[in-house]
Each structure stands twice: as C-alpha cells, then as structure tokens.
C-alpha cells in the first residue's frame, strides 16, 4: 500500500461507518446517511484499486482514472456553484421584498419645523399616512 492509501483508506472507511451509524440512530435522514456511506465506500474503493477508475475512465475515452474523477469533480463543482448562486439570488429576492414592504408601510413626510404639514410626524417615525389612502397628492 502507498502512503496515501494508508491514510486515505481509514479516513474514508471511518467516514462511511460514521454516516451509517448516524443514519441508523436517526441523527441524519436514513436515505441521506446510506447514500453518504456508499459514496465514502466508493471513494475508498477508488483509492484502493485505482485501476478500476482507470477502466471506467477508458470507457469514456479518458486515459487515467484520476483525470476522469477530476473532470467529474469540475463538472459537479460548476453545477454546485451555479445552484448556490441561484439559491442566494432567491434569498436576496425575498429579503428585498421584505425590506421593501416594510419601507412602503411606513412612509414619512418631512417638512420645515414651522410648517410640518397636516399629516407629517417626522419625529415619531410612525406611518404618517397609509400609502394607498389618497391617490392624489397632499400639498406640503
């Protein structure tokens, strides 16, 4: 066994066992835990028998198994980045709408101290007038 195998194999097999235990205990969802332990076992197999991944790579016309896995990783990484970006955009849309509705529900009307206008209450910051109340325009 190579040095890398000595330290990767216990790590991967250990991770597989931990995932399995966690899923059996119900700490993580059972299906997710089993899926993860399978993934860790696959990684362990790939480390223990690199020739297997090379044969898989050859099926796709890629010379080395390692290259095959790197390419897969690149594709997955790109996909994950984009879906995370899309998710953060969705969150941003929600936050924006929350902040906007809050702002719209509390309009203030300022004015010079001597003539603050009938509906203005700039100090309290409470809604001066309901935004939908008047379709026209009150004079200052």
């Amino acid at each position: 066994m190579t040095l890398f195998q000595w330290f990767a194999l216990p790590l991967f097999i250990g991770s597989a066992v931990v995932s399995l235990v966690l899923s059996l205990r119900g700490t993580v969802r059972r299906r997710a835990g089993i899926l993860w332990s399978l993934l860790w076992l696959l990684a362990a197999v790939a480390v223990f028998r690199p020739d297997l991944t090379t044969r898989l790579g050859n099926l796709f016309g890629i010379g080395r198994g390692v290259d095959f896995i790197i390419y897969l990783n690149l594709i997955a990484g790109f996909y994950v980045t984009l879906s995370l970006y899309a998710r953060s955009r969705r969150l941003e849309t929600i936050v924006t709408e929350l902040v906007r509705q809050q702002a719209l529900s509390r309009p203030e009307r300022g004015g010079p101290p001597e003539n603050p206008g009938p509906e203005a209450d700039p100090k309290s910051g409470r809604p001066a007038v309901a935004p939908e109340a008047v379709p026209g325009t009150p004079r200052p």
Partner: protein
Amino acid sequence: MRADDGPRIGPDLRREVWIVVAAYNEAGRIGDVLDGLLGRWPNVVVVDDASTDPTVEEVRRRPAWLLRHFVNLGQGAALQTGLDFALRRGAAYLVTFDADGQHRPEDIDALVTPLVSGSCDFTLGSRFLGEAVGIPATRKALLKLAIFFTRVFSGVRLTDTHNGLRGMTRRGAGALRITLNRMEHASQILEQIHSSRLRYAEVPVAVTYSADSLAKGQPSHAALKVAARLFLEKVSR
C-alpha cells in the same frame, strides 16, 4: 423628436409628477438636491437605503416623502421601492433622479414634456447629447464601452446607457420590475424597456462631475463586477 415641444407644464401637471431619489450616505449633498427639486416639484420621494450618515435627518427637514430600507440593498432596489410608492400614490409620470447632485433639476421639464404629449413612455437622459461637465477621460471611455456593449447584447441603440436621470409614464413604470438590486439595474431597465416594446426617446441633459461625486460614486473597476453579475444572471436561470 425635440424634447421642448408639447404642452407647457403647469402646477396641476406638476402634481402628477413624482421624482424618485435613491439615497445612500448622501447627507452632504441630498439637502441641496432636494431644495433644487422641491421648489418646482411638490412630489419627491427619497428612498434611504440604510444610510449610516445623517441622510435621513437632512430629508426630514424638507417637505419630501421618505421611505427607509432597514438594511442596505442597493440602488436598483431603492429605485424600485420609490417607483412602487409613487405608483401607489397615483403618479402619472415618474422621474428618477440621482441623490449626489450630478443632475440639474431644470432638465426634468424636458424629460416630462414628451411623456405628457404622449409621444413616448420612457425618456432617457443623455449626457453625451447634452453636456458632461468635468467628466474624467477614463469615465468617458468606460461609459462609451458600456454603450457599445448595450448595443451588441440588448440591441438598444442609445448615446448614454448609464444615466440616472430618466422619465416614464405610469404605464412605462408598470412595465419595469427591477430585480437586480445593485448597479446592474441600469442595464436591466434598458432591457425591460426594450422588451416592453413601449416607445422611448433620449433627451439631452447635463451631468456634472465634482470631486465629491466622483469619490462617492462607483470606481471604474466596479464595472467588471457589474459585467460578471450580469453574466451570472444570464447563465443561472
């Protein structure tokens, strides 16, 4: 089309116009900007984008409407909030105006007149048809590049694509929905104007660059970030 034909703007008409100002940390400039606007336009709404300086106090001293975002979202988001408010208040015509004093309030008449006469639904201020006072050479080059890219990617032929001074009818504002919160909104607005198939016209306006507004404004390299976000937006949905 010349901008200065059409109906004269009387006091009744002025009340149908809403000026939308998005402000973030503009305490030093917003006062003068509002004083210049409020003399002629009774309806001015400032959307404070969670400023950390006394912008809000400056606005409260004047008879303008004030809406406050409680977290900073960006200029695009603030403009949309202001447009929403003006539409709810029954605005017939809406004008976006920058808070940093780079625009001239006198130019608004020329933006509103074509809207009132019904010749178009959007009027877009152009500093290159009008004047760009004190514009640095690098800024000018960058803006010209943006104009070129806009022409290539969205097919909109304009002489100034990143001018914050715009006018629109109620119908026009209803066709806009700014979802790009930060500086990318300028491109998004143009795309939405284009896809709305409503008519638009450019109007010569003056933009004044001061040391102050340049320091506060976007650094030139921010354009790269904007381009990257516009690209991500296209490929992620």
